[in-house]
């Protein structure tokens, strides 16, 4: 495919000037010039220069859906690992259950997984997550796999197209967290298929027409599709 190749940029590479362009995500300004701050793919939208990161830790943003693993239950809160550089706090007021004082372990204990939302990120990166929403809950059973957080958009696809295809062919329940974690529940061979699809997406992330190729891959060894 000889179409316009995605341009890879490296830290310190000059991308434009502040007079002609605007600095977007993944860039910094020095003396009126815009530079890339991380390894990624260049994305120009109107006057904005963005870098879509290829690798790197999950950077929590308020409102993100994340999959967390409970690390510790305290008397009025839980500490949750959400794959960010910092642990997140889940307060008893932020869960849908009525909890008596020091009764936290009955509801969530070390090792439990939850589908949560980032509630707040303060200046010193203290994180808080919440379970107070209709679509947030404790994940029972299933498996957790991890992926490169920067590939979140590729894994869900345009308007969730990719994840819908994977769901359709594997007959698994899948939840994708923005923090680089996927929760899968289903039959063993279905899970196998999901793992295969995710691995392909990860290795071919910077290419075009990925969704159709993944569909072909999944279709090949599927007989019945609901």
């Amino acid at each position, binding site marked *: 495919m000889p179409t316009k190749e*995605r341009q890879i940029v490296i830290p310190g590479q000059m991308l434009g000037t502040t007079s002609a362009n605007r600095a977007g995500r993944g860039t910094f300004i020095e003396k009126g010039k815009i530079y890339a701050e991380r390894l990624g793919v260049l994305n120009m939208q109107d006057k904005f220069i963005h870098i879509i990161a290829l690798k790197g830790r999950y950077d929590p943003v308020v409102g993100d859906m994340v999959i967390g693993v409970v690390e510790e239950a305290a008397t009025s809160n839980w500490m949750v690992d959400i794959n960010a550089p910092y642990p997140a706090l889940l307060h008893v007021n932020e869960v849908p259950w009525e909890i008596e004082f020091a009764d936290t372990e009955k509801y969530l204990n070390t090792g439990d997984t939850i589908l949560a939302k980032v509630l707040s990120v303060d200046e010193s990166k203290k994180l808080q997550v919440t379970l107070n929403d209709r679509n947030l809950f404790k994940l029972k059973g299933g498996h957790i796999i991890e992926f490169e957080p920067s590939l979140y958009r590729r894994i869900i696809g345009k308007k969730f197209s990719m994840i819908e295809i994977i769901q359709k062919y594997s007959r698994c329940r899948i939840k994708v967290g923005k923090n680089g974690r996927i929760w899968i529940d289903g039959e063993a061979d279905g899970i196998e298929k999901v793992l295969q699809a995710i691995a392909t997406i990860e290795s071919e992330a910077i*290419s075009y027409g990925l969704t159709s190729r993944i569909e072909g891959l999944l279709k090949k060894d599927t007989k019945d599709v609901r």
Partner: protein
Amino acid sequence: MKSDIELINSEGKRLDGRGPEDLRKIKIEAGVLHRADGSCYLEWGGNKVLVAVYGPREALPRHTQNPLRAIVQARYNMAAFSVEDRKRPGPDRRSVEISKVISEALEKVILVEQFPRATVNVNIEVLDAEAGTRCAGLTAAGVALVDAGIPLRDIPVACAAGKIGGKVVLDLGKEEDNFGDADLPIAIAPRTGEVLLLQMDGHFTFDEFNHAFDLAVKGCHTVSELQKEAIITKYQTVAEEVQE
């Protein structure tokens, strides 16, 4: 130490056949380890260095945290088999010093303000040593940081210059380091030319120092191009393989 070896002959040829301004052969490969967030393997002449980067992650114990920015913890370590006559394993005075100066050099290029209370761990493992390991280690660390997706102002790069047989030359080899007159390892941020590390061993005159410094900066820029090439090849091939 006195020696009767002629380190540089009258025609300006050195022991290994290099001219005074030639670097040793350099090979850089990014992303060689799967468990680390970022990694790099580098060969520089007879030096072999492996670097793994972890983070940013929460700095522990808590008292080491800085509420305003990330800390950088580089650990330079020489393998027991990296030198002739087994090196006693573990940190010694020399490696603690090198770890410190490399940490401080890397701190200047990493955008530490973005990650308060966090740490970036850089493990530099010297597998085979042949003079100039701190430069090799720092150069490899730069590539590994990029591979880890850590925000950087610039990719740090290091190179040394020295004096042998009264002449200023680039990138000292083993015999030149042991029997030479002076060694000047420097690290710079190639975009701005900012000096990140500067150490000196031996004696230079003022003019010789300036000459050696300029030479080392020039060497850094050459190595910097190799670093960029290594990163781009690694990620460009991924893009091309898929495009068939």
